[in-house]
């Protein structure tokens, strides 16, 4: 017969790969052990992990056993899983967010033309962070998507409503400039060649 030490070692390997609670019966069958012996081996293992204060312990659930982490170590695991870094919004993300906040509903092309640079990535990022949202589609040519801010935006910046957005003196000028650019935007039509 295979010696007890080897069986216990195999039980550990099995618990490890199994993940879920491992039925004593399934484990016993592999070694042609009787149920009681297998159960005792698991209990011995459990006592060993407990006695040595290991970071993994064996939990018994309904005549099954499972490896789990030691409760006391939770705080360290949490620290490992939550990187301390506070992600801040980048300058470009803030710019795009500001434009959307003040000009909503606004299309990507309008934002691009105000900033003079493509902002697809930034918009994607802001949507992921739930700060902006697609409001629908413009009725203009190409039916571009319209963007606006979300309530997460209001919450995170401490606004009760969009009316709380401070008035920005120069914003009029900017909007002026855009008029001209708006016309250009219309060139972004979606072309369909099967028209003929």
């Amino acid at each position: 017969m295979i010696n007890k030490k080897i069986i216990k070692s195999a039980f550990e390997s099995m618990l490890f790969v199994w993940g879920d609670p491992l039925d004593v019966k399934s484990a016993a069958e592999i070694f042609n052990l009787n149920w009681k012996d297998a159960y005792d081996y698991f209990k011995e293992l459990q006592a060993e992990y407990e006695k040595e204060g290991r970071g993994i312990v064996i939990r018994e659930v309904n005549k099954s056993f499972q490896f789990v982490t030691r409760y006391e170590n939770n705080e360290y695991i949490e620290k490992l899983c939550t990187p301390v870094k506070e992600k801040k919004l980048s300058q470009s993300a803030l710019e795009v967010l500001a434009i959307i906040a003040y000009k909503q509903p606004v299309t990507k092309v309008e934002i691009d033309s105000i900033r003079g640079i493509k902002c697809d990535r930034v918009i994607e990022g802001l949507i992921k962070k739930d700060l902006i949202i697609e409001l629908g589609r413009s009725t203009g040519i190409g039916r571009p998507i319209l963007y606006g801010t979300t309530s997460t935006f209001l919450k995170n910046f401490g606004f009760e409503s969009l009316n709380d957005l401070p008035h920005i003196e120069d914003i009029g000028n900017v909007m002026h400039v855009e008029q001209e650019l708006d016309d250009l935007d219309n060139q972004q039509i979606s072309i369909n060649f099967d028209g003929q």
Partner: protein
Amino acid sequence: MTYKVKLDVFEGPFDLLVFLIEKSEMSIYDIKVSKITSQYLDYIDRMKAMDINVGSEFMVLAATLIEIKSKMLLPKLKTKEEDAIEDPRTELVERILEYKRFKSAAMFLEHKELYNKKIFEKPKEDLSVYTNEPDEFLSLELSQLIKCFNIFLAKKKKVEEIKNYCENVERQKVSLESRIEYINNIFKVRNKHILNFQELLPSDNNKYEVVLTFSAMLEMVRQKTIIASQTSNFGMITLSLKNNLKEDYMEDPSVKLGGSN
């Protein structure tokens, strides 16, 4: 009925060459080039006969072998330093040895891989239970947003000032809608159903005008108000009104034409 013959698959020409040398129990340091060359060519012929795709790499080595073989056949010129004459096989031998070295390294890795495949990892636990907070914590401040926007506005203003000095750029950009209108107007005024692309261009045409007109044309094709045709590459584009009842598409709510006409 075709019979599939199982043939050793070789990883490359060197693999085949090494196999042949080993099979005929030759010493790598004294390769019988003419014997090995004919075996090598034979093998390739057999592969071809069996419809096995013989890569050009195999032919490159074949050429090398033939070249060495012919060099070996040349009578050795007796020079004063006879020993210094290089054996034409030297480079080939070095390359074979280099290849064999890595082939055994590959065998070694295979052995290691086999062993390590019997060691099991376990998947990462679901870590979301340990992270109560979202992945990213956004620290957002109103002052930051305003500051950022002000910087941006200042930049913008500066660009505008510069633009004002350079008035000669484009004063008025015509929108696509107005160009479509313009085109429709031409059709109407000239009372024609067919026009050439050139005829649609304003007199002071420049690149912008051409592009805009072209875009307008494409949009009109898309809206199915005109048909555009071109008989040859770079040839004349002919536009014909699909329906000279302009009202028809004016009523279509999906087509929004700016201005009044």
